[in-house]
């Protein structure tokens, strides 16, 4: 049995995280934890130890950039790949495969589940 990949989703929109988690888990390949606040993200990562973090950029309170910085500073977490989900960049600019801008990976909202899984498969070793 292949190990399910652990995915941490950090986004301030509960409907979004709920649905995405549902969709991902339905495939049977993923175990998903959702977190709706930037403040709790670091703790969640420490507890859950994900294989990949999907991180919304624009959030009230602590935003994605700050969370990413915290994770990078944490020795136990800094190896975990982070992909930003953002409404600030258009799909046209990012393309369906995601894009690296300034050294960071981006997926443009609205993401489809297919996009997410594709990205995970490409960037997370089994």
């Amino acid at each position: 049995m292949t190990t399910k990949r652990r995915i941490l989703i950090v986004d301030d929109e509960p409907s979004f995280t709920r649905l995405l988690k549902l969709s991902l888990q339905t495939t049977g390949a993923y175990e998903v934890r959702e977190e709706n606040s930037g403040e709790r993200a670091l703790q969640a990562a420490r507890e859950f130890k994900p294989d990949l973090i999907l991180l919304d950029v624009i959030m009230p309170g602590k935003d994605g950039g700050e969370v990413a910085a915290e994770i990078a500073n944490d020795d136990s977490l800094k190896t975990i790949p982070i992909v930003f989900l953002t409404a600030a960049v258009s799909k046209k600019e990012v393309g369906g495969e995601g894009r690296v801008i300034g050294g960071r990976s981006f997926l443009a909202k609205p993401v489809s589940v297919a996009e997410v899984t594709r990205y995970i498969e490409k960037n997370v070793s089994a």
Partner: protein
Amino acid sequence: MPEKPLSRDLHRSIVVYSAASPLVISVTVAMLAIVLLYHDLAMLEVIGLIAAGTFGVFLLLRPLAGKLIVRADELEQQVREKTAALQAELNGRSRTDEDLRASEMRFHSLTQSANDAIITADGQGTIVSWNPGARRIFGWEESEAMGKPLTELVAERFRKAHLRDLERMRTTGEAQVLGKTLELRGLRRDGSSFPFEMSLSTWNIRDEQLTTAIIRDVTERKQAEKELSRWVKVEEQLARAHAELKEREAELRQALADLRESHEALEEAQLELIQAVKMESVGQLAAGVAHEVKNPLAIILVGISYLSHHLPLADRNVAMALDDIRAAIRRADAVIGGLLNYSAKRRLEITVEDLSAIVDQALLLIKHQPTQHHVTVLKELGQDLPLLLLDKTKIEQVFVNLFMNAIDAMAEGGTLTVRTYVTTLTRASGLMRGRAASDHFRIGETVVVAEVEDTGCGIDEAHMARIFDPFFTTKPTGKGTGLGLAVTKTIIELHQGTIDIRNREESGVRVTVMFKTDR
């Protein structure tokens, strides 16, 4: 009777006056003789005539001592002869008198009637004759003027000169002033001075040299001259002012033309400003809206994903519904995307690029579109164009937008022509039309130009002003966001280029994009 020599014994002479008539003379003498006889003075001799005139005769008689007897008739004869001679002389004299009187009368009538002052002065410069004109001019009555020195009529300042002239005239016998007209200032009785002209003539009588001055009061004339010169000056001033006015008029006309030009420029600038403000506010709105809309969209999309796994996809209607929903999400996202593009931070990723290559790439991106719409593509891309500093992706986006617009305009098919070239701007090149061009570029500058032409329906002139407005679109609802050209223009301007869109004479539209080559 023989004449006896008479001894002249003058100390015993007597003077006798008599009226001129010889009869009276003879009677008088006779009576005298009788008287003298009585006094033992027997004879009288008429020695001579002392004076004679119309008044009578003065005779010098001498009683003759001795026995000489002069007969009365002889005496009478003598007297008669003498009287005749006298009379003759008198007649002659009275003729001269008449001439003199006639000439005097002529002189008098002249001087009386003359407007000018006619003044005669004697050798000492004293006034001896004064006409009514002089009275009028100087104010002195004849009685007052006679005996005055001529110089008193001259204003003090000029007296010395005047005296000098007179002196010269007297001493040299002729004068520089003779016959000439002098201008002096005169002094009136009331003390006021005035300008006059004087001409002098001189004439001699016996040993005396008399001078006649004819003086004309030229106050009025001088004033008239002054007035005239004033009017001449005024006329000159007017002429000058007129010339100046003409100049000013030309200047004003020019200024008016300039003003009109700048007014037009101002109006254009105002329109652009309004547009910029619109764009600014839209930009700010866009960023907020984008974020707020994308999140729900994301939810919908993910939700659909999930649902699609739990719905009977075999049911065609279910499948169709899901497809429709996905399409709608994509459309909504496209709008948001466009909006974001529009408000994106104006950071460009600049690299050195060949415009022809970018245009070619853009054509590739839309490669299926032309054939779908039965559009022929004509490529005239310049080789070895000067390399430009461009954001490749954004410029590609620009041309994709322009190509799509062109194709959309040729619903019935047509030709899409794409051209790139390098050129130097001249006044005649037509590329300098449009304010944007004249603002960004100078004549003589080298530019890289891209042209996109279609043979479609063209743009309605009424819409021309608004084609770059955000959300302005002539496409039916759902077919276009109206953001394409607005974003395109922004991108080009960020590259300090210009975009010009106008209708072609033949049909359709030509879009001209220009970039500087030296940056």
